[in-house]
């Protein structure tokens, strides 16, 4: 994996963003930005696209699923790898995300290895 890839971490809980960021840093990524909900993320993405999006499901203003749909509907962004972070109880809704074109998903709570493995798959 290219450590210079630009990654956007979207989560409304700052601690969660830190957890994800720490894992990403462990894997070797250095270029990480953050957004606190889908709406903010979309604005950022439209201004400056990234190479990978890691996004929580439950967020105020714009949920992860809505962000995913918006990204897939946007000509410029639609090819961006999009990894959804989801909690166990929502697995039934995973299918929804899969059909909306999610690149992969990670189930909470996850380990650094699990993330690494998923990202390898997504980024090839």
């Amino acid at each position: 994996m290219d450590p210079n890839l630009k990654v956007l971490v979207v989560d409304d809980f700052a601690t969660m963003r830190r957890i994800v960021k720490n894992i990403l840093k462990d894997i070797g990524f250095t270029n990480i930005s953050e957004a606190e909900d889908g709406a903010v993320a979309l604005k950022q993405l439209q201004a400056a696209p990234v190479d990978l999006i890691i996004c929580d499901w439950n967020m105020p203003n714009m949920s992860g699923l809505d962000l995913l749909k918006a990204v897939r509907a946007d000509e410029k962004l639609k090819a961006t790898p999009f990894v959804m972070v989801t909690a166990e109880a929502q697995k039934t809704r995973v299918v929804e995300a899969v059909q909306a074109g999610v690149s992969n998903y990670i189930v909470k709570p996850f380990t650094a290895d699990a993330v690494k493995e998923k990202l390898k798959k997504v980024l090839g």
Partner: protein
Amino acid sequence: MEDRDQVQKILDESALCVVTMEPDDIQALGNILNNFDAVKKIVEDTAPKAWLDLCTGLKGVAEKMALFEVDSPTRALEELGKGLSLLQETQRAVEEDQGDIERLCAFLRECPYTDSTMECVAPWASGPEPAETEDQSPPLDLSQDRELIESFIQESMEHLSSIEIHVLELEKEPDNLQLVDAIFRPFHTIKGVSGFLNLREINKLAHQIETVLDDARSKKISVSPGLVDIVLDGVDLVTRLIDDVDDRLKTGRLEPEYLELGPFQERLRTIAEGADAPSEDVEGEHVPEGDGLDVGELLVKKGVVQAEDLEEALAKQAAGESKGKKIGEILIEGKKAKARDVAQALRKQKTDRQPAKAAGGNGGGFIKVDTLKLDNMVDMVGELVINEAVLKQRLGMAAGKDRELAGDLAQLGRITSEIQRIAMSMRMIPMKNTFQKMIRLVRDLASKAGKKVNLEMRGEDTEIDRNVVDMIYDPLVHMVRNSADHGIEIPEDRLAAGKPEAGTIILNAYHKGGNMIIEVTDDGRGLDKEALTAKAMEKGLIQSAEGMSDQDIFGLIFHPGFSTAKKVTDVSGRGVGMDVVKGVLDKLRGKVEVMSRKGQGTSILLKLPLTLAVIDGIIVKAGEQSYVIPTISVLESIRPNREDCHTVVNKGEMIKIRGSLYPLIRLHELFDFPPNTRDPWDAIVVIAESEGKQKCILVDEILGKQEVVIKSLSAMLKNVVGLAGGAILANGRVGMILDVAGLFSLVESQADYLTAS
């Protein structure tokens, strides 16, 4: 025909995809799932059931693969491929060929990944409880990122207080699903993160509460007062658990505090099972209704009811023909509208009336900044301001001759004060959060005491220094408690006194003359002056009430150990409280004022400086030193007459002003420097006040009044009693800021020492 071509095309594409993809390629699986949906939609009405069943079955296989639920993904993919080619083959022929149908059914039966019952949708059903391990939470693993846990604690606390506010709003508007959502989300997040940090108890509790909320969100259970109570209790429990983690983190204690969660969980279970019927009884007669006209208008607007019918119904209502009936009921009776539509209109009416939720702040983003950095910046800006003043003084003469220089100086002045304003505003936060915390307090107090209390808040957006907010919280709690507990009467008494049954407490915040004013007003029984003075005499605080002004009498409540409550309740009336308020206000260099009228209510006014970083000071000179006395502590300054200066045995020097004697403080003796004048009648005395006591401070002259930025003293000088800090004065020199309270106690301890020896 076109449909068939299209189906063929989609199937071909899917088959190709299956051949080329990896079995765990989620995105490819997503495409295939969408393709199945598309195919089914096209041929829904035309294709035979067996064919459609196979589509559904195969979609189920793809879903299971996406959910990683198959034992061998590679084999599942193979089966998917086989199934797809069967679909391709039979697509054109199937209508006529019974054999094809046989083949489809056989495949469905035999494929190990298709669900024979065709129920392949919800593979996970409802959320499983996090592993039910019996051991209590394990010792906190501090090898994890400690910072992470700290930030979790801080953030969770913020979330919990937001939950509390939302729950209380929800109690008022139980149908507002947005609020349920706003409560659900933070619990969900707390659950998620606590899972990571291995905080099992918190994780479990948050999960259970979340489950109940999820049911409320999906309308499986209704939002009842019971639900509101239990969520509030849940907030308390989670808060305690988090506090415990915080404590363990700080003390290094390994064992978690034991918290009995059983009864709470039992209640949760009852709530979750208890009310399974949604509260809205659409067909029922009791359609809750607000203003009839609006409902009618909504119905007309929606085209459910004709305008004429509405008018007719309204006329009926007005004529008393259908007396006491709601407009909705009349319309339903007259068969002009269906109950369902009316209920919908009612709901819409309700949501319309809710104040538009602030949907997404458009005020730009926020960044979190270390308060230390901010304090540093404010400090440096203070320096800048003073430096500007110094420069102005130095160049003042030259500027008189040089117009350009004068212009530049004026511009510098404007910029500096603007920077100062901005820097100060950065530390300002609105009172809102602090005020909102009182909602819960008042609610709990009122319900405990069987009272009805409304809390009104005004000026919540008024901003105040962050540090002041933190310190003002406790006093505010005491004041609100006093109002709710002692001020507001029980409903019977209120009715008997001709007041509305529910009492009102008003919190108000506003700026006035460089100060922040916070008012707590209640319309309760007011302070009883006789009771106050009687109590004070009993306690020996005063000899008689003679000559005491209202302010003096009300001021008695600030004496430590003073409480007029006849009954000691578990929330207030323990004889502590108002003296705490006074203490904090003194520390903040603020003031308290009490206004009260018996039978009509009490209003307590806190006057606070806007910021702690700057004070308004009187600059005085004693010897070669300059001192700053906080203006708020200064009552007046005079040059006494020679005959007014006395020396009293055991009490030292006193100055008589308007008939009262005030002790004299000589700074040169306390701080040991040679004075310029020793005789008060040749110098000036400043009369300063602290904690209700007045003393005179001897100084040589008064240099002026200035706003100074407080600089804390270095470690070596920090413990010097009587000095609050240092400041750079307009002339560029350093002046010490006097701590009047400290100064007084210093003098008193010396006097005691003298008397003792």
